């Protein structure tokens, strides 16, 4: 078994009397996209910054690439790339100047022209930072995080405030990073992002990790129920379905039927029953639980409440 890239155990961090991180333990393996998900103020950023070597913690152990971020922060900085939440650069620094400056800070650097091109920033290379759009700024920060081809990339709320198109472009880029064998540690409070992008996620709430696993595992573990909703003009549909499926949670509202069940076969069984009974269906959709539902189940509230 290869050592994990990141290992955090029993991390605890307070600011004055406020406990930012109460108890966080996690491991991140090479080549995976790991997402720390939770609402604002849950301790995501603090955890990440302890791992990056930017913050001293009170209790617990952290190791990244075999280094202790407290003792070997400088050595670590050469091997990791970071992007901070709501960060800025000098207002009047040009895109190419930022790239040039960052290039001078690391021993080995990627082809920066290709990187700018890949991030769609080539046209903006002479633009001042303050004139860039939100998405362009984020892409520049991604470029700065990737400029030295780091082994681990840390991305804090990367796509917050971006439009869906810019978001998708960045997701694609991050997938590309992982596909080259790099490790990605990100935080997000967007469940869709976590579900689409992350190989594994950890849910954090009030400074504690409450669950860890692949998005699919978490959904199966905590929200196994499946729903089918369809419309039919036919008569006696509810009786037929209840008889065949052996379930009693069929509800009908204005010719729209909602069926609840569990297991991977549930949707297939419903389709089969509909076909067997030759029920005439005018509309059909499934309601599958997602991470948002898992979060609601585990914490009792929605992530954006």
């Amino acid at each position, binding site marked *: 078994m290869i050592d994990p890239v990141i290992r955090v155990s029993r991390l605890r961090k307070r600011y004055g009397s406020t406990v930012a991180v109460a108890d966080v333990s996690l491991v991140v393996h090479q080549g995976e996209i790991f997402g720390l998900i939770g609402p604002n103020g849950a301790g995501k950023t603090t955890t990440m910054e302890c791992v*990056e*070597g*930017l913050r001293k913690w009170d209790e617990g152990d952290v190791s990244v690439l075999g280094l202790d971020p407290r003792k070997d922060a*400088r050595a670590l*900085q*050469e091997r990791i790339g*970071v992007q*901070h939440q*709501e*960060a*800025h*650069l*000098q*207002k*009047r*620094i040009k895109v190419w*100047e930022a790239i*040039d*400056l*960052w290039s*001078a*800070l*690391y021993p080995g650097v990627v082809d920066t022209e290709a990187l700018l091109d890949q991030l769609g920033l080539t046209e903006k290379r002479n633009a*001042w930072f303050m004139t860039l759009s939100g998405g362009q700024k984020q892409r520049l920060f991604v470029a*700065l995080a990737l400029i030295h081809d780091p082994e681990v990339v840390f991305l804090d709320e990367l796509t917050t405030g971006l439009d869906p198109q810019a978001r998708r472009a960045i997701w694609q880029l991050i997938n590309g990073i992982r596909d080259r064998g790099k490790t990605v540690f990100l935080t997000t409070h967007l469940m869709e992002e976590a579900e689409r992008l992350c190989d594994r996620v950890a849910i954090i709430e009030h400074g504690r990790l409450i669950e860890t696993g692949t998005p699919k595992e978490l959904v199966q573990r905590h929200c196994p129920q499946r729903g089918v909703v369809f419309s039919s003009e036919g008569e006696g549909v509810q009786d037929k379905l209840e008889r065949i499926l052996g379930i009693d949670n069929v509800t009908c509202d204005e010719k729209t039927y909602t069926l609840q069940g569990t297991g991977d076969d549930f949707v297939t069984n419903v389709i089969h029953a509909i076909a067997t009974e030759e029920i005439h269906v005018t509309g059909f959709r499934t309601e599958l639980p997602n991470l948002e539902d898992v979060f609601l189940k585990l914490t009792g509230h929605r992530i954006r409440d």
Partner: protein
Amino acid sequence: MMTGFWKLTWVEIKVFMREPMGVIGTLGIPVLIYVMLGRVFRDRPRVDTPQTVTLNLPILAALFIAVGAALSLVAIITIYREGGILKRLRATPLSPLTILGAHVFVKLLFTVVGLILLVFAGRQFFPGAIDVNLWSFTLALLLGTLSILSVGFVISSIVPTARFAQPIGSVLLYPMIPLSGLFFPIESLPTGWRIVANMLPTTHAVGLMQGIWDGAGWGAHWGNVLGLVVVFVVCSAVSTKAFRWE
């Protein structure tokens, strides 16, 4: 990591030059003060004030350069801190000292540029007014500025937000100018104020610059040099403890 230092310094110079208000404030104002007051006081660089101290306008202007540099430093550091720029730079292999050192270096560089402008203005408007060992005077101004900049670092450690940086910085730094001995002698101050004045870098900067201006050697003003060094050491030590990166 010297490559990083020079790259960062160069970037900061360019970024500073692109902000017209900053350039005018640090480079234009001292020259303006010098030229305008010089005109008011009938083209004489030295003016007899009622307190019988001879006001040396070039030194007043030089002091404005130094104080302006510190104010500009406070503004930049607090804005960079608030924008997460300092934090982002710290997440690179750059050492914290390199990041802050580059800013100090840029400020010292513009101090020299300011002085050069001052000398040119002097030659232009008051021929024969500036007759001094410029190398020695430049060095004195740089030492004074460095010491005042270290006070700037302490101020940027204590101001809560960038919005307050300018007013708090001004309130703390500008009163140092009238207490510096330029307008009336330190000896004429009440004891309490005299002690305060002697703790201020501006007072020692003025003492040293005045001495160099009058043709005295550095040895004659070792007390001022020591004062500037002590302020620098104490303020640097305080900043090391109190400085906030975010």
